[in-house]
């Protein structure tokens, strides 16, 4: 008790509406433990399952929604006791963050909560990989985004383009960011970032930094008046949320240029429908109108690439490709089925960089402009 009041006095306790909501959710979690203990029951948490079996594809909204399946986590179960304890520990940690009006990285939280359990040599968390899934558990459990828990992930993803925005009060002109671009923060909520002026016609999202550099150097965004983003592989939430806002608030169409492999397909799927892991967030992140520009399985032939750029598919690649073809949001799209079928027939994958083998600026000067002009993309 005393501990908490002291914290309140020295912490900045100005809570936003969102914070109050999150706090209420966390407190409810604690109440359930006390209630169970008072009734001499085994306290448990019902954590929504974060698996393919527990997501539903909402055909009208065209996004993934989380189902009702939950995994029950008991305190008095040998296999679950520790993760139960960890879940509550993370909840308590987040509450302290919110109370103090601070945010921290998930690694920071891991260090904040890591300590030796009294009377033993056991650590509360052995390493961060043990802590991260627990954070995700808590997110789905209290139905709050990571950002709402005052946590952020490692920042990755950059942006350039004719866009002026205000980030935490600072005005930033994304067309004057030099060669580095504007680093997309992990929290891009309207409270943090407001769009001020935008003249772009569309957004081109590329898979990774190297390709993004190519486009930026060739001033592709200037030539075609677009915003250029990348997400460093699987885009973090900040990037996805920003794409969502660019699309919904500014009405910009989103085009994705990703590798021609199952991994690229899945990145597209996440941007478009949301991720399976955190399906409850997709309504705030998914951009169902995003388009898949490339690379396509047919490009090896159409662009007349040399054999040396082929990368053979591995067994996991093949398995993953078949799995993706089965996803309900791909299952009824004939073009996509054909695309994936083609990939399997090719039995090789292609990276976007493969186009460089033709010419250093082939991708920026020929490939993308032609595809956009021809409207040759997958939905």
């Amino acid at each position, binding site marked *: 008790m005393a501990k908490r009041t002291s914290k309140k006095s020295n912490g900045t306790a100005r809570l936003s509406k969102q914070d109050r909501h999150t706090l209420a959710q966390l407190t409810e979690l604690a109440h359930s433990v006390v209630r169970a203990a008072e009734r001499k029951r085994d306290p448990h948490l019902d954590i929504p399952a974060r698996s393919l079996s527990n997501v539903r594809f909402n055909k009208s909204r065209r996004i993934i929604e989380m189902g009702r399946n939950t995994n029950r986590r008991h305190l*008095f179960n040998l296999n679950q006791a520790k993760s139960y304890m960890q879940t*509550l520990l993370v909840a308590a940690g987040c*509450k302290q963050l919110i109370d103090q009006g601070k945010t921290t990285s998930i690694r920071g939280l891991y260090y904040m909560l890591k300590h030796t359990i009294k009377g*033993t040599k056991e650590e509360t968390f052995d390493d961060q990989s043990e802590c991260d899934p627990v954070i995700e558990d808590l997110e789905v459990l209290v139905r709050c985004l990571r950002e709402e828990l005052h946590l952020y992930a490692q920042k990755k993803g950059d942006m350039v383009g004719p866009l002026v925005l205000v980030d935490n009060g600072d005005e930033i002109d994304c067309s004057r960011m030099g060669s580095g671009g504007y680093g997309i923060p992990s929290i891009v909520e309207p409270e943090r970032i407001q769009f001020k002026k935008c003249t772009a016609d569309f957004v081109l999202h590329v898979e990774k930094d190297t390709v993004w550099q190519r486009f930026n150097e060739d001033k592709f965004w200037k030539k075609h008046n677009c915003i250029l983003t990348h997400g460093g592989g699987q885009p973090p939430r900040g990037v996805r949320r920003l794409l969502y806002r660019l699309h919904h608030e500014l009405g910009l169409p989103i085009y994705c240029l990703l590798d021609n492999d199952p991994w690229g397909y899945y990145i597209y799927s996440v941007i478009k429908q949301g991720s399976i892991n955190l399906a409850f967030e997709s309504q705030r992140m998914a951009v169902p109108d995003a388009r898949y520009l490339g690379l396509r399985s047919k490009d090896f032939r159409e662009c007349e690439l040399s054999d040396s750029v082929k990368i053979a598919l591995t067994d996991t690649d093949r398995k993953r490709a078949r799995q993706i073809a089965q996803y309900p949001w791909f299952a009824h799209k004939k073009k996509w089925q054909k695309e994936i079928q083609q990939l399997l027939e090719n039995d090789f994958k292609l990276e976007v960089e493969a186009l460089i083998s033709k010419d250093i600026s082939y991708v920026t000067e020929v490939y993308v402009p032609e595809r956009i002009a021809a409207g040759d993309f997958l939905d």
Partner: protein
Amino acid sequence: MSTAAASSRKRRRSAEQLAAQGRDISVSEFFAKNRHLLGFDNPRKALLTTVKEAVDNSLDACEEAGILPEIWVQIESLGGNRYRVSVQDNGPGILKKQIPLVFGKLLYGSKFHRLRMSRGQQGIGISAAGMYGMLTTGRPVKIISKTGPRRPAHYYEIQIDTRRNKPEILNGRGQGVDIPPGEKGRQYMEQHGIHWEDVPHGTRVTIELEARHQRGRGSVEEYLEQTAIANPHVTIHYTDPDGQQRTIPRSAEVLPPEPKEIKPHPYGVELGMLSTMLKQSREQTLSQFLTRSFSRVSQSVAKKICETAGLSTRARPGRIGRHEAERLYQAIQQTRIQAPATDCLAPIGEQLLLKGLHHVVPGQFYAAHTRPPAVYRGNPFQIEVALAYGGAAPTRKVSRELLEELLQESDARTLRQFLIHTFNGIGADGAERILKASGLGVRKVPAKLRKAEIDKLHQAMQHVNPDEGQTMTLIRYANRVPLQFQQAACAITQAVMNVNWRSYGLSHSRGSLPAGPVTVVVHVASVWVPFTSESKEAIAPYPEILRELRLALQAVGRKLGMYLRRRARVKQQEDRRNLFLRYLDEVATAVSILDNTDKDHLYQLLLEVAKRKTAEADMKLDRSGRLVGPEEELQDESVLIVEDRPELWITRSSNGQQAHGETSETED
């Protein structure tokens, strides 16, 4: 070629000369030269064998007379390597004219010619001990025996004439002395320095011999302790060379049932023996001979044997020739004859064996099993096995003073050897760990340790638990007599090593004794125990005996397995509890941060739930998935469990106690 060479040389002796050298060898002479055959190989063993033969005889005599035995054993040091051993009993006493024969003639005995379970068999033991004493010190054997409270005590000093195997009485002009009962007699004894524990009847034998007293493995102390296990009806008083007295009181007030004497079984008789019996028989007909000299031969069986052999049932036994005897022998082997009666055996019994073992070996779990009697070569025998598990290792029971004495006495060259040889079952591994913990060098000489070093060693012995490196302690008995030597040559050891102890939860590598804090007691009871030598140290591996041994060992093994599995399960529950307890505090803290609940109150609440939860789990299932109820526990009377597990709950409550290990056995 050799004959040619030999004939070419000059003959050294003529046949006549050679013949003149040949003469009778007396048994006494033979054994005086071959003392190792009787267990007098070295001074240390000589001491033990002497005590052992005397005690065995005393116990046999007491039991035959129906007296609860009380034995006094006294060893006095006479300086140098001379010792005086006195053993007295409260037995029936020995008749005057028999005393010289019993103690002064080899191969004189009451037990050789009958088939009955007894400790002694051949009638060599005690007279051989006397002879050994005489050979090494030149002092005679002294015997006092009294047959009743009003009867005089007969006092003899006897030597053996080894050449003629005859007793020579030294006192009372070759007649011995009669000491009158009452006060007068007591005075006489005092004057002549004769010790006598005041009992109405009994016998005391005193032998002076060259010997060596050393504690530890194969010692007199060990023999007496082991005797107490297998003979819970015996009280033993022991005075060691330092004058320390120790009494092992009896734990049972009942004498074992008297074993019956039986006639030999036809299957157990060999051809030569059969011929001799035929010659000596006074029976009129072959049929009578067969039915009266053997057990389990009825008229009809006798007839069948005779028919098969092609002999008349009316033939005179004395006239049966060598060929006919052989036919008769074959016929016996071919005829189906009932197994011998087994009431001639008196096993210790599971209950008494458990009691005896519990009395002497500290442990947590005891189990015993007695096999039904079986037969080898026509001799009935019976196997009993008891097992003790857990308890402190022998190294942890030693006091600082005793350790110092043990170190002085030891003739081991290094500390490591000292530890291995002095303490049963700690093994090389355990010894090494103790030495490592003590920080002393492995090669230190035990007798030269300084005070501070002894302290260190003692401390290490107290703290190191040699359980893991410990090998099974095997205590072997034949007709209630402990077998302390030649463990490796014994059928019992073979049987123990051949059982797969791994399936009963012990670690065990092939060709060795299993590891772990286990003591196994094996008792072979038989009318004729097949020893491998006269010193009665190891049992011969007859297949029938090995089979029975295996079955008995497996029976106790199964019980041990059940106990160990149960213990493992209880341990698992404890681990479970500990795990929960560990996290409860964290959970309570987290919750109190979240919603300001009183942390301690919540912790108590959660603790209650935890107790309930694990208590339930304790009761639920055993390893094989069957439902277990507390009422099943300890129903098996051949099992004894001593629980001494430490309390694990931080706060105690009534149901917390119940939650502890009150699970039970189930048969598997």
